[in-house]
């Protein structure tokens, strides 16, 4: 069994928190009077990417180091893009963008990279 560094555990935690916030943002974007499902769909897309990113910090998580960093940037970029589109509330967008930037810093950290390349069970 490998020991996960604290920073990797934080990456997992922030990924899950980001996903949950995106789910809440998507639910709050529900507008039955306009019958638009697209806004909710885009909110859930952000949630899925954040949950996937969180999963990459698990001991049995998938993807190489580069893919983890790429996913962190993708999650942040998608959160900002979806906010610009107006699908989720601006404040949720700002919180998600901050969490995304933290995730990029965690993912690009050399300690995370070393753990993914050496200690993690699967790559």
């Amino acid at each position, binding site marked *: 069994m490998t020991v996960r560094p604290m920073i990797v555990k934080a990456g997992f935690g922030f990924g899950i928190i980001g996903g949950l916030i995106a789910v809440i943002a998507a639910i709050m974007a529900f507008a039955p009077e306009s019958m638009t499902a697209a806004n909710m769909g885009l909110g859930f897309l952000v949630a899925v990417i954040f949950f996937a990113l969180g999963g990459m910090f698990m001991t049995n998580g998938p993807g190489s*180091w*580069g893919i983890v*960093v*790429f996913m*962190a*940037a*993708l999650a*942040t*970029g*998608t959160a*900002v*893009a*979806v906010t*610009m*589109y*107006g699908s989720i509330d601006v404040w949720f967008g700002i919180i998600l963008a901050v969490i995304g930037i933290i995730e*990029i*810093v965690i*993912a*690009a950290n*050399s300690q995370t*990279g070393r753990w993914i390349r050496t200690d993690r069970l699967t790559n």
Partner: protein
Amino acid sequence: MISEKKGGAAFAILGLMAASLFFVLMILAIADSSGWVLGEDLIRTLAESDSGVYLNSGIALGGILLAFGSIGMVFNGGRHGKTAEGVLLMISGILFVWVAFFEPENLVHDAAAILVFITFVLAMVTSIYDDFMDNRSMMFGAFTVFLMIVSIGAYFAYDVAMYQMVWIIAAVVWIIARNAKGLMNEPTINKRK
């Protein structure tokens, strides 16, 4: 082992000057133009106005400096991704000069503008490849991916006048960040270990 030559700072300064000079002159053109409204009027309208001389000067100077600044990327390091990025940015810079020199009514102007866009996007893609290859520069690779996703989002979120500005600002920020990184010692896989 990855060996990298250092000493491309002069080229990086040219790149920094290219982006900042273009941006300053574009701001000057916007400030000088009375009728141009951000988010409502196209950049093309600004270029055709009386204040267009500032913008066109910025485009021409920026293009020349970008083309010369990219020489450093082509010959500094011997990495395929970085060489391709340098060549694409150099082509982009040369075509950028064409955009300024040819009148907006001229077909060459439109063709050059489209090709600038294509070569610039390809340069960003090769930059991502180079940064993620051998885990060379994760942070900057992530930054490039982020800017690209935001630019794609802007295309769907805003109308043409606004997303044009978002793209220009994203490109300026990317060029400045790319060359600021070039001024510092690039982290290599050896240093990360």
